[in-house]
């Protein structure tokens, strides 16, 4: 990346960049609104657009179709949007602070940590209340993140992207193997597979309270360190010279990643690749400034998951596909493309 123009780029918002962001942001928001409307309007049960519109502006609780929209589709679409935003922002942050274009909560094994704790709690304490389950999967995410981070950096050469990716893949392999062992021993296998596969199906308004408030707060809070993240993402030494407290920024960013990924996994299961694809697209569109990348990633991530969830339930109705699978099938080619491109570095 062009280190010479870096200073000017990152510290002051040049006008043209700003406009570019505003335009791209508006288009993306419009896209999000359209996809949310599509996802609400079309589902296993067919209904006219007029009914959909009426159920939103003039909700009548005794009509079945209105109920379908309010009780099933709305919570689900909102959940998909919020989770998508969370995964995308988590990915953007990770890619920024580790300077690793292949970083992603799914690839790096953070999701596997959360899922492992889920397996443990399913097996040993099946009666836990909802928020404790969230907390536990969150602990799992923290644990695996810390261990991957330590393992990736605990060597003479320090934290190289490849090393981090490999450490993540191995930790993920280990944890999912252990989860599988637990699941098989306690005969939870298929229940757990549904968590792994991911999906926004079982989400209710009561869950959404938690989910939306935690994730939105975190994303807004993250904006506070976005400038430091963009400096860090280009060159650690320049960042230090410009007065960025790199260790603290890295720590804060990773903490945000863990919150975002951990909470999302506990609600919607392990959905990989969102955090990988979206920040790359965002970077293509608005450049390297994380003040732009983070909000744009949130919008685009929300859009991707809303559409993926919509596809998952309309391709073969009334059956539903797994959301994580739909996204992974999109994400894998992209990952391969990135891996191939990476050789130039």
């Amino acid at each position: 990346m062009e280190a010479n123009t870096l200073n000017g780029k990152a510290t002051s918002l040049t006008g043209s960049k700003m406009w570019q962001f505003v335009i791209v942001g508006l288009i993306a928001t419009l896209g999000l609104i359209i996809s949310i409307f599509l996802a609400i309007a079309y589902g296993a049960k067919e209904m006219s657009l007029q009914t959909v519109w009426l159920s939103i502006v003039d909700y009548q609780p005794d009509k079945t179709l209105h109920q379908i929209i309010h009780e099933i589709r709305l919570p689900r679409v909102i959940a998909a949007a919020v989770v998508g935003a969370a995964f995308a922002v988590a990915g953007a942050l990770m890619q920024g602070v580790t300077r690793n274009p292949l970083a992603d909560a799914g690839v790096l094994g953070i999701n596997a940590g959360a899922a492992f704790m889920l397996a443990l709690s399913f097996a040993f304490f099946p009666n836990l209340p909802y928020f404790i389950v969230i907390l536990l999967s969150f602990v799992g995410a923290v644990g695996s993140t810390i261990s991957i981070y330590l393992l990736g950096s605990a060597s003479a050469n320090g934290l190289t992207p490849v090393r981090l990716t490999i450490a993540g893949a191995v930790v993920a392999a280990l944890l999912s193997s252990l989860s599988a062992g637990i699941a098989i021993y306690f005969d939870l296998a298929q229940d757990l597979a549904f968590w792994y596969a991911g999906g926004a199906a079982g989400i209710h308004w009561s869950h959404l309270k938690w989910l939306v408030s935690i994730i939105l707060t975190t994303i807004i809070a993250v904006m506070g360190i976005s400038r430091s993240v963009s400096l860090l993402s280009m060159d650690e030494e320049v960042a230090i010279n410009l007065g960025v407290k790199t260790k603290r920024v890295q720590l804060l960013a990773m903490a945000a990643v863990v919150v975002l990924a951990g909470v999302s996994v506990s609600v919607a299961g392990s959905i990989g690749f969102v955090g990988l694809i979206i920040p790359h697209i965002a970077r293509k569109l608005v450049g390297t400034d994380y003040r732009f990348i983070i909000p744009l990633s949130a919008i685009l991530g929300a859009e991707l998951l809303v559409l993926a969830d919509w596809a998952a339930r309309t391709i073969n109705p009334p059956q539903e596909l797994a959301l994580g699978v739909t996204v992974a099938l999109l994400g894998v080619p992209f990952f391969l493309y990135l891996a191939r491109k990476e050789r130039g570095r």
Partner: protein
Amino acid sequence: MRKFKPTVLTIITALLFSLLAGCSSSTKTPTTAQATGGAHTEKAEKIASLSIHLTNDLLALGITPVGSVIGGKAKDFLAHVADRLHNTKKLGVAADPDMEALLALKPDMILVDEEFAGQDLDKYNKIAPTHMFSLDEGTWRDHLRALGQMLNREQQAESFIQEYEAQAERVKSLIKEKTGATTAMAIRVSAKELRVQGMKRPLGPLLFEDLELQPANGVEKIQKAYEVISQEVLADYDPDLIFVIVNVEEDAKKVFEQLQVNPLWLGLRAVKENHVYVINEQPWLDYSALGSKMALDEAEKLFAK
């Protein structure tokens, strides 16, 4: 790179075929033991069953097997028959039975389900004469009669079936009296999905043949055990009577609690008229002579009030 080295390819192809051949020989000669059924009558005292359902058919005939496989989920005998199997040796789960434990029992006769054990038939035959049943063919009545013939208990089999039919008639009229229902469906709630039970075993034959309920609109299309559906289309079935099977897992119960306050659920006709009946996984999903009878016992209590 440009051209394939023929030797390696030939070797791989040859080996592939040998691997195929190796696997095929294990299944080549399944000696159909069913034909030899009559030979071992009355002498067979120690019977080992490698199907939980056949075990329960045996119990219906008043025979306690010396060994039986256990339910994969419960890691034990199915709860509704566990008290009758105190002296029965556990032989592992049906998908992976413990051959050594079976051998140690020295049974006189082995009963197997084609679905799980078809492949290992000659291994079983080495231990004791083995009878294979395909539970997908015929109803439990056919299996019970076949067993009765084999074990000289034809009388018991017939009277069990007659009693069952009489009981089914009673339950049928009880349901009519209490609910006036003609159409019905059964759903199963688990943590992540909602299933509609179809026309095939385990639940279809009991509800739609024995109890002569009409399948709810759309259920007749599900010609298998069950289908996973979206909550959105739940209202389309709209039957007079709903049976709900809630998985034993705690989170499945939570899901059902949430479903119960869902306006969509509350809008269903059966729910409004209070014709929802929660039934247990066992015995209702145990498609066997005893399982079906015990399901009717429960139904008699459910609809008696």
